[in-house]
């Protein structure tokens, strides 16, 4: 499969960057081709501009400001996101990638005369997420209801292929993590993406 791997962390030597590298190596070892979109390294601007907002619903015209990113998204048969969970969800730079690139005519279509939106990224058959959270699992999942997971798996995955599969891996309690817990999670990521 051709996999678009989107990474969102500002620090090159971070644990999150190690997770990105582990995902990439495992996918390539399994024979997949990987297109790495490193949002910070590529200087991605996450703010939907006034001009973009004005042409937001003009299908085809609307993708011109982000034509390259749209092309990379449309080429993907699988999407993998690697990011730290900040404020219960994705960092602003990744949120902005969805705001600016998952456009009408690209990710979904709005039927004439109203009605529910229709999926347009039907070439994407699988979504994988690798993230970490300072909060423990009971708090993020149980109390908060994991807003970040809801956005991706319930809100955005329906824009992909009808029965797109998903893989969600999270290192909870990062604030209390140890070298052992981090190594264990890296191993889990490696194994999961070799079978991706």
């Amino acid at each position, binding site marked *: 499969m051709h996999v678009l791997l989107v990474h969102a*962390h*500002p*620090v*090159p030597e*971070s644990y999150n960057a190690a997770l990105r590298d582990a995902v990439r190596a495992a996918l390539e070892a399994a024979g997949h081709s990987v297109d790495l979109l490193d949002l*910070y390294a590529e200087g991605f601007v*996450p*703010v*939907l*501009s*006034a001009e*973009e*907002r*004005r042409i937001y619903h003009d299908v085809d015209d609307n993708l011109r400001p982000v034509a390259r990113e749209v092309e990379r998204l449309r080429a993907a048969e699988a999407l993998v996101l690697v990011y730290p969970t*900040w*404020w*219960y*969800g*994705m*960092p*602003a*730079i990744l*949120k*902005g990638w*969805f*705001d600016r690139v*998952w456009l009408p005519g690209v990710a979904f279509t*709005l039927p004439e005369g*109203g009605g*529910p*939106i229709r999926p347009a990224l039907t070439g994407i058959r699988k979504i994988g997420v690798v993230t970490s959270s300072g*909060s423990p699992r009971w708090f993020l999942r149980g*109390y*908060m*209801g994991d*807003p*970040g997971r*809801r*956005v991706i798996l*319930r*809100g*955005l995955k329906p824009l992909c292929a009808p029965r797109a599969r998903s893989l969600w891996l999270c290192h909870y*309690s990062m*604030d*209390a993590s140890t070298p052992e817990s981090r190594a264990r999670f890296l191993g889990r990521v490696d194994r999961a993406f070799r079978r991706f």
Partner: protein
Amino acid sequence: MRVLVVWAHPLEDSFSAVLCRTAVTALARAGHSVDVLDLYRADFQPCLSMDERRVYHQRAPATGDVTDLVDRLRAAEGLLLVYPTWNFGPPAILKGWFDRVLLPGVAFTLEGGRTRPALDAIRRLGVVTTYGGKRWMVRLLVGDPGARLVRRGLARLCPRLRGCDWLALHDMNSPDAGRREAFMAEVDRRLSRW
């Protein structure tokens, strides 16, 4: 009461701009002093930088434009967020305000692995937002992640909170001027009571 209004929309002729003006007018009429933080016109940069991430947990004093934004948040007794819901949450520019301004030592403290609230001055919290999708879809299918962020995540960091006003207009993809007018009236009414 001093109220910080954080607004996030790229267009000054948008419905979001109308809602922001409606809210500010209602708050001012009720006798509050209102500080409007217009993230787009302030050219706020939402990406937590490499340097900021490195010192995130070090309680270092905020630097650059964040210093001013932290001061304005600390001065606030009321906090109102006005934004369109995009992809089930706040626009990136507002998400970045959370990431960069609501720092350890500002919004919360971490003590022995536990989060303690630190937004001690805030007594009222509110959101004015719009959704393209229908209410049942946002709530039942997706579980309204945007509301969870504020009503559970942010509200718990305000120990003196007397209430959270969640004002949302759904189904914006099906335009209906009458519903917009009614929503503006509701925003005016609810914020007049702050």
